[in-house]
């Protein structure tokens, strides 16, 4: 998932740095210093998770946990993942210092997207509370793999082959990470629901255009 140095072209690196800077600035602005311990611990979990390799299928993929980080932190995932990726580059030589921006963007943007997916997902439409978090964890890795393949494809020319190869190689990890995200979020829902973001309803569903009330509380 981490792009090494000297692989992608300079415009991609510069774009990555720019996007990561903007995202980190917004994240730091939205950071609540009362919850800074949570941010630090999640960044540490991400830092360590990159070392855990799952030898399943043809891939050599590893845990990322950007789904959990994204659901819990939202925009603050940008600075958390940036620091995690920086320390992984320094201590473990995963990725590089020049690719810090693009690696942050490839992980943090999917984290942000699954954060909003979790917030705006229908609360009682599905019986299982773990289904949406599973889908969030699954999608976070899938979108990150897509981001990596897009970064490589904009440097080389064969996008579809690269995207297919990276996606297929990460498919087992997407499923595993979905389970891990679902179990973590279900655990937090039971013991400390205040750690999770408050869910909101999309305006379109409030008007109930199709006659289906997705946010009706169960009796």
């Amino acid at each position, binding site marked *: 998932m981490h792009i090494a140095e000297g692989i992608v072209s300079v415009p991609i690196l510069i774009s990555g740095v720019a996007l990561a800077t903007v995202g980190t600035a917004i994240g730091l602005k939205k950071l609540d210093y009362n919850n800074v311990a*949570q941010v630090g*611990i999640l960044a540490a*979990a991400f830092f*360590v998770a990159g*070392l*855990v*390799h799952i030898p399943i299928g043809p891939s050599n993929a590893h845990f990322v946990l950007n789904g959990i980080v994204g659901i819990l932190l939202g925009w603050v995932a940008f600075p958390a993942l940036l620091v995690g990726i920086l320390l992984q580059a320094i201590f473990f030589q995963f990725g590089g210092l020049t690719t810090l921006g693009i690696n942050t963007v490839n992980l943090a943007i999917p984290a942000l997207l699954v954060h909003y997916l979790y917030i705006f997902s229908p609360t009682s439409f599905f019986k299982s509370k773990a289904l949406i978090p599973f889908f969030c964890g699954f999608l976070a890795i899938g979108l990150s793999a897509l981001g*990596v393949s897009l970064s490589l494809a904009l440097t080389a020319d064969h996008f579809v082959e690269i995207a297919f190869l990276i996606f297929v190689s990460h498919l087992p990890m997407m499923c595993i990470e979905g389970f891990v995200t679902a179990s973590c979020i279900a655990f937090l829902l039971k013991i400390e629901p*205040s750690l999770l973001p408050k869910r909101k309803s999309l305006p379109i569903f409030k008007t109930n255009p199709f006659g289906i009330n997705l946010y009706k509380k169960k009796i």
Partner: protein
Amino acid sequence: MTNVYTALSVKSVCRTLSLCLILVIFPLSALAHRAFLLTWIENGHVKVQGKYGNQAVIKNAKVTVFDPEQNLMLSGTTNEIGIFAFPILQQKELIVVLSTPAGHKAETRMLAEDYPQHSAPQDRSPSPKSPQAPLSTQHSNESWNQEQLQLLISQSLEAELSVLSHQVKKLENKIEEPSLQDIFGGIGYLLGLMGVGAYFHYRQKLKEISPS
């Protein structure tokens, strides 16, 4: 006066910490995710093998070989067991680069002293099956001259030493794998950064509420 210090829920911090400690202890069996390159000489060929940190081989990865002036010498792809082989070139000092479609890259430098003394490039016919092939076909009834004897000895030694040099390269790469000290060092840095950020933030708040 409103208190700017909203108390952190100690219980919630402890619970989150205990959850994350599971992930900290997990990497006792953790494996790195970085590409390594092993090079060794065998039977007049330079063999290059790509591996991940967990010793899984890298198949179908692109290998490019440059001279020290960054001129491309040759390129190819690794086979099913992660190996790419090419005959020993006139240029002994080489830079070998391996890159995978997933964005991993590994580079290594070969020096003149990495080559066995009698492995002259393109000077000898590749005979991977048996070092005794020249023996049986040409010299069965003649006395040996010194050069042929040296070639025979170097071929035999090469076959034995290729395994040894392979193990040494693996050992060199093993030293670069993340250790437990690196893991805890990184976590320490993270928590330290968190503490520094919180310190400067609340120092600012303190100045606002108590200017004296």
